[in-house]
Structures are given as C-alpha cells and as structure tokens.
C-alpha cells in the first residue's frame, strides 16, 4: 500500500486515558492468572479497578461541560479505524461501572472467601476484571462491531461468575446455562442487526452510520436491522418479556457478583440501547416508526407493575430484589419512550441512582448470607437487632428504591413524573406513583422481617465484618448524598441527554 504519513503529534499520558481505561483491567486480569498467587490476586484487582476509577473521574471531569474526546486506536482515523469516543453520556456510565467495581472488590474479599472454595478465588478476581473490561469497552467504543466483541467478553465472564454460585446452590449452574443461551441469542441478534446496517451503509463507525442512515429510514433492510438490534439488546437489558434469565441469575450468583452485575451490567446495556436508539438512529426515525408507542410504553408499564407485584410475594430477599430490578428497568424504558430531554435525563439519572441503590441492597444481602447462611426471609427475621449497621444501610437502600424524598431514588422518579407531565401524559405519571406504592409494599415487608419479627433461631449472629460494612455504608451514604447534592448527576445527565438527542450532530465534533 502506498505509504501514508501519519501526522503523529506528541501525545501525553492524559491523551491516552481512553485506551488506558480499558487496558488496565484487561492486562491485570491475565496478570493475576499468571502470577497465580491467591494473596496477590486481590491487591492486583483492587489497584487495577481503583486506577480505572481515577481515569473515569478524569474523563468525566473533561467532558461534563459537553465536549467530546475522540481517541483513534493505532492512529487509524475513523471511520476505517476503530475509535473510542467519550462524551458526557458514556463518561457517566464509566464512572458508575468503575466506581461500583472499586467498592465491590473490598466487599468481595470476605464475601467471596465464605461463598467460594480457595482454589477458584484467584480466577474469580481475573474474571471479575475481564467482566469489568467488557463493560467498560462496550461503553467507551464508538465502533458498532466493537460493541459486540466487548459485550461478549463481559457476557462470557458473567456466565462463569454466576456459575460460581454453585458451591452454595447447584441451581446457579442452570441459571448460568440459561443466561448463556439467552445472552448468546441476544448478542447474535445484535450482530445480525449490525450486518443489515453494514449492508445499507458500508460502515461500522457509529457517527458515520448515523450520517449514512439518514434518508434510508424507509429501507426495509435498515428497519430490520433496527428491530434485530432492539431485540438483541433488549435481552441483555432484560426488557420485560425478555427478562426470564434475570431472577435466577441474580438469586444464585455469589453475592459480590450479584452486586456488581445488578449495579452495572443491565445499566451498560441500557446505555447501548440509548446510543443506538438516539445516536445511530435519529429521534426522527423513532417518530416515523411507532416503536416507542407499540413496544416501549406497554412493556415498560407492564414491567413496572408485573415485576413489582411478583417481588412482593417472594420469600427470598435476593430474588425479591431481582424482580424489583426488572421493575426499575421499566422506569428507565419509560424515560426513553417519552422522547424528551427531561425523559432522557430521568433515564440516565435513574440508571446511576438505581445502580448505587441496588449495590447497597445486594451488599446488605451478602452480609446476611455471610452471617445467617441464606437470604430467605425466615432466616433474616429479627436481624435488625443483631446486625443493626447492616440493616440500617439496607433500609436506606430500600427507601431510595421506593423514591422517598432525600434519597437518590426520589430525584430520578421526580424527573420521570415531570417528564410525563410535560408531555401531558398525566395517567402515566399516576401509574409511576402507583407502582412506587408497590415498592413501598415490598420494602415494608423487608423492614417488617428485619425489625418486627422474632429471630427464628437462637444462635447468636454477629454484625457483618468491617470490610463489608464500609463499602455497604459508602453505597448507602451515596444514596443520600446524591439525593441532596444533585449538581453532578443532573449536570452530567443534562449534558448526556442533550448530546444523545442531538443525534449524530452530537457525535460529530
């Protein structure tokens, strides 16, 4: 090939932040396996995830004003080369993923130690980092096929992580197997969709795709591609009728894994959905096809009620929280369906707030599992007295889940109600409040079990160890902090929503 002079300007370390974000956990994971020392596995994993968190904070601070960082891998210019693109929307998600990972790791040390045999723990940390790499990669990349590759990196490690729960309950194996089948079908659908888009445009760069797709919205190829991408990602997001893998996977996975997955994996999938629905396809396309009216509204509302209702009647706290996650995903979809800036802001903020809320709650569950052996309501009866600190944090998480004023959950639900009213959909805002009442019921049942019933066994149960309490309380305090201090979340969500709604013009520099 004719040699091309690549203008190589001197780059400093800070210019390489987007790639370092991915590389650090990605290199640390095999490092753990090669060193093979159980004692070194945890420190390496923690240092890697803490470094990524610092990088994510730096990236967020750079783009929160609305600017965009474009990083060309290997110096190959997009659309031919693979591009990493950081804007307010994905920097915010990177911040969430790395932040949760950094807090889950100290927690995991004790929790994993009690739920898994020694010999698999080294590999656990390697897989955890790989899963995190995949999630970060999905978030940061601006190349549509790259999304698939990273998605599979995170999914494959997720299946293994879930299967690790088999040391406690063998049903983790079938849960992981079912998730593998569903997840692979979802990812393959996503690839089929990308294939259709590639046929129509001949490009895979998201901004370039968006450009070349305008004017082709009537094409059946493009519409079929959109449908495949929507269903494929819908499986990963666990949109209501595609959620069957989720309850078992969350219930039987080790507690630390559930915490990490519930707080990040579905959130990243929602982000990809947002990216494709709003940036690759323009809002004009959505207005033209009636996807939102036919698919998003009814399924979002169904999820809010059916899943919340199911959550009330669970006898396992972990499973109850899994169903509540499906309901909360309904709120996020509703925000997308409203197709307004406020609605999108509500989705993005809820994505973040629900992430920290669920992290706090599942960490509490892990503490109960460690001390009482399981998370069944009968087993955790009366633990409010014996494990006061854990239970108090769980109650804070529960309040945030309902959306009580003063907690993070209130802010996002308030925005969502506002967005519905803005569009004049007052029945929808009523339904949001009504489904929150269902949340009150399942959270109250938890509070009642913890504080008002007598312990079922006479054995003395101690408070959870400090290494678990500190991350748990960090999350619980974050739920309160982000309920009052709303500048960070609102600012980032506003910039993100504007960038997303601007469509491809938001993706071009």
């Amino acid at each position, binding site marked *: 090939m004719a040699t091309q002079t690549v203008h190589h300007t001197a780059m400093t370390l800070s210019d390489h932040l987007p790639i370092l974000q991915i590389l650090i956990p990605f290199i640390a994971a095999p490092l753990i396996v090669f060193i093979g020392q159980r004692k070194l596995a945890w420190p390496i994993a923690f240092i890697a995830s803490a470094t990524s968190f610092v990088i994510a904070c730096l990236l967020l601070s750079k783009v929160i004003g609305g600017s965009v960082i474009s990083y060309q891998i290997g110096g190959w210019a997009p659309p031919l080369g693979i591009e990493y693109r950081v804007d307010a929307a994905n920097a915010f998600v990177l911040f969430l993923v790395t932040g949760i990972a950094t807090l889950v790791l100290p927690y995991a040390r004790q929790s994993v130690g009690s739920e898994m045999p020694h010999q698999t723990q080294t590999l656990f940390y390697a897989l955890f980092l790989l899963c995190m790499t995949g999630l970060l990669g999905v978030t940061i990349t601006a190349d549509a096929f790259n999304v*698939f590759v990273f998605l*599979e990196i995170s999914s494959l490690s997720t299946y293994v992580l879930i299967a690790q729960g088999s040391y406690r309950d063998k049903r983790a194996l*079938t849960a992981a*197997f079912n998730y593998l089948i569903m997840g692979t079908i979802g990812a393959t659908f996503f690839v089929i969709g990308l294939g259709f888009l590639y046929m129509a445009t001949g490009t895979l760069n998201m901004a370039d795709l968006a450009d070349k797709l305008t004017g082709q919205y009537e094409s059946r190829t493009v519409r079929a591609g959109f449908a495949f991408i929507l269903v494929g990602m819908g499986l990963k997001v666990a949109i209501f009728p595609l959620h069957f893998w989720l309850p078992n996977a969350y219930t039987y996975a080790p507690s630390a894994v559930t915490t990490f997955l519930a707080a990040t994996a579905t959130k990243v999938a929602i982000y990809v959905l947002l990216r494709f629905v709003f940036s690759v396809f323009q809002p004009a396309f959505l207005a033209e096809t009636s996807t939102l009216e036919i698919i998003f509204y009814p399924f979002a509302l169904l999820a809010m009620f059916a899943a919340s209702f199911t959550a009330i*009647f669970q006898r396992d706290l972990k499973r109850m929280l899994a169903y509540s996650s499906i309901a909360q995903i309904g709120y996020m979809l509703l925000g997308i369906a409203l197709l307004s800036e406020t609605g999108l802001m509500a989705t993005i903020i809820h994505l973040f707030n629900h992430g920290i809320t669920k992290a706090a709650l599942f960490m509490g569950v892990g503490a109960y599992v460690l001390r009482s052996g399981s998370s069944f309501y009968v087993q955790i009866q009366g633990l409010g007295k014996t494990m006061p600190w854990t239970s108090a944090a769980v109650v804070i998480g529960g309040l945030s889940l309902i959306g009580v004023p003063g907690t993070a959950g209130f802010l996002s639900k308030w925005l969502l109600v506002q967005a519905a009213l803005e569009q004049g959909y007052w029945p929808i805002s009523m339904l949001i409040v009504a489904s929150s009442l269902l949340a009150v019921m399942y959270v109250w049942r938890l509070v009642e079990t913890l504080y008002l019933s007598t312990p079922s066994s006479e054995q003395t149960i101690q408070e959870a160890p400090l290494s678990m309490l500190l991350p748990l309380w960090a999350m619980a305090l974050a739920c309160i902090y982000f309920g009052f201090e709303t500048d960070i979340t609102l600012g980032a969500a506003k910039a993100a929503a504007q960038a997303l709604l601007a469509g491809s013009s938001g993706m071009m520099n």
Partner: protein
Amino acid sequence: MHFFTSEFFFGHINYWLFIVLMMTGLYIVIGKGNLVKKIVGLNVFQTSVFMFYISMGKISGGTAPIFPLDGKYNPEIAYSNPLPHVLILTAIVVGIATTSLGLALIIRIREEYHCIEEEEITVIEDAVFRREYLQAKSQGETL
C-alpha cells in the same frame, strides 16, 4: 408481486439459506430439552450468521482481496469485501468460547443433577423449591 419471480428467489439465495439455517438453529435451541442439543442448535444459529456476513462481502466475479506487492493493481479487477470476513473471524472465536463454556457448564450440571434433560432438571429444582417452601412454613413464615 415481484416476490415470486425466479430472479427474486435465486438472486437472494444466500439470504434464503441464511434464514433456513437460522430458524433451524433457533428451533433446536427452543424446542429441544437436551442441553447438548441446545448448544448444537446455538452453534447452527451462530453459523448461519457467519454465512450471512461472509456471503454479504462477496461481489460477483470478485477475487480474493490481496493487494499486489508492487502496488500496481489493475483497477478493472473486482475484489470481494474483506471486512465482513474479518469481522466473522472474531465472531467465530466468540462462538467457540461460548460453545466450550456451554459444554463445560453441562458437565458441571451433570455432576450435580445426574442428568442433562431440561425436564428432569425442572423436576429436581421443583422438589428443592418445595422443600424450601415447607421449611419456611414450618419456621413460621409471615406471608
């Protein structure tokens, strides 16, 4: 209707084959209870997508996209599009990883459940579930 002309049928023959393979695979995944058969179905399903991508890059009369070393290429030669092929190399690797992980999970499932039929596994899991329910009831569950 132009749907039923022979040109429409043979002109899109690669897509028809893709659809038949894809549906066969998807049917096996959903319809069969044997876990190994499910994985095989998943494989057929994924392979159909590989075929779809590979046939997409083919240009009629196109040759292998190898650039002459001296840089003097004949602009009249049509080359097939190599990009879909390269993408599918990645997807094949992912497919192998998925298959091996699925099979490994089946081995573990067989060790724990002593069967690999979905129906039998459901029976065992239902029994565990009922035992949990009775245990909860005997300990005075509130609901």
